[in-house]
């Protein structure tokens, strides 16, 4: 919706939207060339639905981090289903409601996904580009490296003695955020967004998920981040570890599900 004029252009030329519960009253999913799904799988009903969508489309695009990797909603996996039901919904009559899955999963755990567009939310230009490429039969441009490659900030080795909270001090407009002691996840996060957060002076939260190098080789992301921060701040690694480990939410905020990463190989846009 935020694509503005580009949306009008795309609707008038190559696409006809035939099914969309948000905009169209059709209740049954028809057979389509291209299906775009948002959101992850939390209930048996979601699972049935995603299998139905897969069976009825030629190309399946997973849109947004919940659908591609699990996203914020998969943080719900922290609490067990049993515990949640006991604490909050002891009165619930589950025969009337869709049964819940044991965990929250991204859609690729159940069906084959042709293209993954992660982001929370994905940038409109990424979506438009991907759709146009698919229609013209071209492979969409894949973004394989990290957010730092799209960030204008200069990486310089600084001399700091500790890390800083996001709002503890004013942000230098030119300098790399990590060099200033902020925990920016740009060096661990897939590019393609245009780095709007670090450009505006905010740390990257990792909403595009890991880049190719982090997904398919068994690299320890925590250790990698510690090394990145150490090299850009001269803070001893042990001090960084201590600070990072103290906070359970620094990291993995956006990737906390049992995501079947091997299936996503070369399909993440």
């Amino acid at each position, binding site marked *: *919706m*935020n694509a*503005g*004029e580009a*949306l*009008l252009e795309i*609707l008038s030329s190559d696409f006809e*939207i035939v099914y969309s*519960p*948000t*905009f*169209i*009253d*059709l*209740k049954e999913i028809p057979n389509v060339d291209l299906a775009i799904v948002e*959101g*992850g799988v*939390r*209930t048996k*009903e*979601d699972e049935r*639905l995603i299998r139905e969508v897969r069976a009825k489309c030629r190309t399946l695009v997973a849109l947004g981090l*919940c659908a591609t990797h699990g*996203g*914020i*909603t998969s*943080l*719900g996996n*922290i*609490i067990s289903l049993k515990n*949640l039901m006991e*604490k*909050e*919904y002891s*009165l*619930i*009559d589950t025969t*009337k*409601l*869709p049964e*819940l899955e044991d965990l*929250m999963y991204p859609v690729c755990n159940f069906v084959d996904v042709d293209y993954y567009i992660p982001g*929370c*939310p994905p940038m409109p230009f990424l979506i438009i580009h991907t759709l146009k490429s698919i229609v013209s039969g071209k492979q969409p441009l894949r973004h394989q490296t990290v957010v730092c490659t799209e960030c204008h900030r200069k990486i310089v080795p600084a001399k700091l003695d500790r890390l800083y*909270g*996001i*709002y503890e001090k004013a942000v230098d407009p030119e300098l790399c955020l990590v060099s200033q002691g902020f925990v920016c996840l740009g060096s661990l996060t897939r590019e393609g967004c245009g780095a*709007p*957060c670090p450009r*505006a*002076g*905010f740390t990257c*939260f990792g909403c595009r998920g890991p880049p190719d190098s982090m997904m398919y080789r068994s690299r320890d992301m925590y250790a990698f981040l510690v090394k990145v921060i150490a090299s850009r701040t001269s803070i001893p690694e042990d001090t960084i570890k201590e600070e990072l480990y103290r*906070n*359970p*939410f620094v990291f993995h*905020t956006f990737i906390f599900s049992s995501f079947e990463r091997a299936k996503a190989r070369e399909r993440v846009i």
Partner: protein
Amino acid sequence: MTGKEITISPNTRIEGHGKVTIILDDSGNVADALFYATEIRGFEYFLKGMEADRLPFIISRICGVCSTAHIMASVEAIESIYETETTETAKKLRELLLMGQIINNHSLVCYFLTLPDFWFPLEEDSSKRNIFQIMRERPDIGRKAIALRSFGARILDVIGKREVHILSVIPGGVVYPLKGREREELLKEAENAYAITIEALEMGKELFEKNWADFKKAGDYRTHYMALTKSGAMDFYSGKVRVINAEGEIVSDLGPADYMDHVEEKISSWTYAKFAYLKSLGWPQGIVQVGPTARMNVNRKATTEVADREMQEFKNKYGSPAHATILLDYARLIDLMYAVEKARELLQSDELTRTDTRVKVEPKSGKGVGVVEAPRGTLAHEYVLDNNGRLEQLKLMIPTQINNQAINLNVKDAATEFIHNGEIKPGLLNRIEMITRAYDPCIKCATRQTGERLRVEIKDNRGRLVTVL
């Protein structure tokens, strides 16, 4: 056709998903109606232990649609714990961002979700009844809808630094001052948006009249109403939460700090969405509604010219308090007018580009509440922070959760109005959907969940499925 159950699923043209079941008695008249939410996420649990700095960013992910309103409530809750009062400039920028949120959401709901119901005859083929068909017939309307929504998104992008899940609003203020050039650009867009909204209001009122006779008795359950108010004038960003009864008498004026003590939630066996009500009145007397109509009912005036005129016209025509559910669609247009006028008014002042947008905060522990008017009504976040500045407890009071029981009652009322002797007329189910759609329910927020669905099934009185419509 006796002893049936009608289920509407998925409920279309709403944000998120839901399901409605209507139970018919043996003579085919409506015995009961239920509005379901069918999933859960558990935000209250997984956010525990999160440091306050990061909280607004993660909590906005409850819902992309109203992310700005959630961030605003979240930051205000944290500021109340820190006992921080931000600057006038920051308050103005925040109010402008909230107007951006209202414009962004309401233009989507008014044009893309509800307009098709008024544009086409009620019996229209359901495959045609959508915005894309309207765009084919009238491309100019499509362009205006997109331009209006883009204006909301531009405000969020320029001041918030991202169109969805804005970054710049933090405890203590707004990170970056607005530049003079940016203000001028936004003001130009505001003038254009103003012209579009004036037109939308005229068109909307005319179309509304066509359906009014059919809907004035469908879902006019009388409840309490609640909204933020500032000396009797509508306000989204600050003021007191005023509660009025079905006769329009003021029941209480609550400051944000007291608000959470006055609302209580209960659960039911058949939905994952909780029900909120006024504690002092108990259940079910304390059923209360929030949202566009509540804002008209609670407030005497609006501080902007056109919105005020429209509000008085609304009150004269439909009474105050007004009860019919479908009036939400009308009142939402007045909200939209107010938001565009208010945004323009804020942008007209040089004061907006002052650079004092931030004060230093001193983290403290304790309990705090933040309240704002989100597009769907009064939204409150309550946090308890521990000595390390981490979240210890979290309570959210979400508009759809407050409206939950009223939605159920009004769906039942509307079903009773439309269904007689088990006869299903063409367009009937859409009429019932129009009642839930008018609330623009956001079930994601109400259950902090993803992906619920609305479907219509017809069951016999032993619960066996007969048909899915």
